[in-house]
């Protein structure tokens, strides 16, 4: 009565297959749950806000009359802010990551810095707002300007950029570095010519995630005193400003239904800015990855 080794009545194997199927279903369920929640949110927002979305909404300053109100100053403020944050945080963040991964002697100080950066990434954003208020607004006397806002936000997202860049740099194969060293390259030449380009797609992903976080943050901006009612456009980095999340927050906190719908419209504008940024990043990443292959 010897059973064939391939006979399917092997209950042990069937049990294992069943387990695998169940686990796959569970994972799929959780995935779809997340996607469904996001979809519901988006649909809700779109239904609320779409009727206010027109050119007038984009080109008007805020107003106490809902039909006259728009996001012009907030949108321009956000674009100013995000550009300045990028200029400040990307070079500092990437250079820090490069230093920690490639150039520093991996001693105790590097370890301490490493642990601290990881901790900083978890600090609530309002705390950064308080730091920004103390250092940039008052200490350095930048007042409630775009500079104060951008520097505070840069502090907030630097840990994210550094951590993501370090992970990207770690994925560059050691063999590429060795090839460069064996040609008589210094560590800096190797990092600049090979490690950085090879880790560029990963760094870009991290940078975009970080900037996306910055674009949606409200608390630190309120803390450093970004204005909630701005009927002019900032003309330079030292001007005061408002940003989309603050405008949205302002509208939501009013009692009238129309302003709530305006807030939904503002959220759509914010999302469009965000998606455009992400799409640009994906496009650039795709192009560079193709070039590498």
């Amino acid at each position, binding site marked *: 009565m010897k059973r064939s080794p391939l006979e399917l009545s092997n209950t042990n194997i069937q049990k294992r297959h069943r387990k695998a199927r169940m686990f796959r279903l569970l994972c799929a369920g959780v995935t779809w749950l997340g996607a469904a929640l996001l979809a519901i949110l988006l649909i809700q927002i779109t239904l609320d806000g779409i009727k206010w979305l027109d050119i007038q909404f984009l080109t008007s300053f805020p107003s106490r009359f809902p039909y006259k109100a728009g996001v012009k100053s907030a949108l321009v403020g956000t674009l100013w802010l995000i550009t300045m944050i990028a200029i400040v945080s990307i070079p500092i963040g990437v250079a820090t990551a490069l230093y920690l991964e490639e150039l520093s002697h991996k001693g105790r100080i590097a370890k301490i810095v490493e642990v601290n950066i990881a901790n900083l990434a978890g600090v609530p954003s309002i705390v950064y707002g308080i730091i920004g208020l103390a250092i940039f607004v008052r200490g350095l006397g930048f007042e409630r300007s775009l500079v104060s806002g951008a520097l505070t936000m840069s502090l907030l997202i630097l840990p994210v950029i550094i951590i993501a860049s370090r992970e990207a740099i770690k994925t560059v194969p050691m063999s590429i570095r060795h*090839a460069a060293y064996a*040609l008589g390259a210094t560590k800096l030449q190797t990092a600049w010519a090979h490690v950085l380009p090879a880790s560029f797609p990963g760094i870009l992903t991290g940078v975009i995630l970080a900037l996306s976080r910055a674009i949606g943050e409200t608390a630190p901006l309120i803390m450093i005193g970004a204005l909630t009612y701005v009927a002019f456009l900032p003309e330079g980095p030292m001007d005061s400003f408002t940003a989309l999340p603050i405008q949205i927050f302002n509208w939501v906190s009013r009692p009238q239904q129309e302003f709530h719908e305006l807030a939904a419209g503002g959220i759509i504008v914010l999302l469009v800015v965000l998606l455009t940024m992400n799409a640009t990043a994906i496009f650039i990443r795709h192009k560079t990855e193709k070039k590498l292959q």
Partner: protein
Amino acid sequence: MSAINLLEESIVEKTAGESESIPSQTFPDEVILDIDNVSISYSGNPAVKHVSFPIAKNRITSIIGPSGCGKSTLLRSINRMNDFIDGVTVDGNFIYAGHNVYSSRIDPVEVRRNIGMVFQKPNPFPKTIYKNISWGPQINGFTGSMDELVEKSLRQAALWDEVRDRLHESALGLSGGQQQRLCIARALAMEPDILLMDEPCSALDPISTSHIEDLLFDLKSRYTIVIVTHNMQQAARISDYTAFLEMGDLIEFGITDQLFTRPNQKRTEEYVTGRFG
């Protein structure tokens, strides 16, 4: 002169406890690099113990031995590539151009400019074929015609005819054997005094391997080559001198023909005849 002494010394040292007689050998070639009483350890664990032998100029020297005998470790310490591994300590001297490459006055970057390396697995840069060759000379201040240098290097590596029409395409599109020849061309573009090769054919098929062996033969007139290989036939075919290492000890060093046909040591004989390893 010192090399001859060294050679005899090392053989005498290794045979001191055994009764075999040693035929007197002479060292007929100019010495470019003298490995002198070198010991290497990883965090205290010895990998190479008191090894001494000379590297002859414009000759191929192969280092053979079973896995884990320290042959790659020894090779990588010649151009200080072991500096990048934590916990490695190197004692003894590598005398090259009158200096110990481990002297505190010597810049390891300068050493690597003159002593090039080809690795076990082909590791081209993820850039174009042209840039793979041109980058090394470029960062080292090469001022001549880069196009000519690229062509010359690729010709020396017997790759020119296969890639002349696709110089500005990615090097990753080449086959494994072509990639390894590109890595050789990249090292040659630096015009190194010595070329170190760490099992350069172990990841390649037999045809690519024979291409590279032919290539090494041609390169001998201009370069000094030190090659680590686990393939004894390869060592016997291509090298002029052979060092046989086992468990970090140099068992025997000599002219390849003699080492393979009339080895002085019983262990060498057992290894080259395939009785272990």
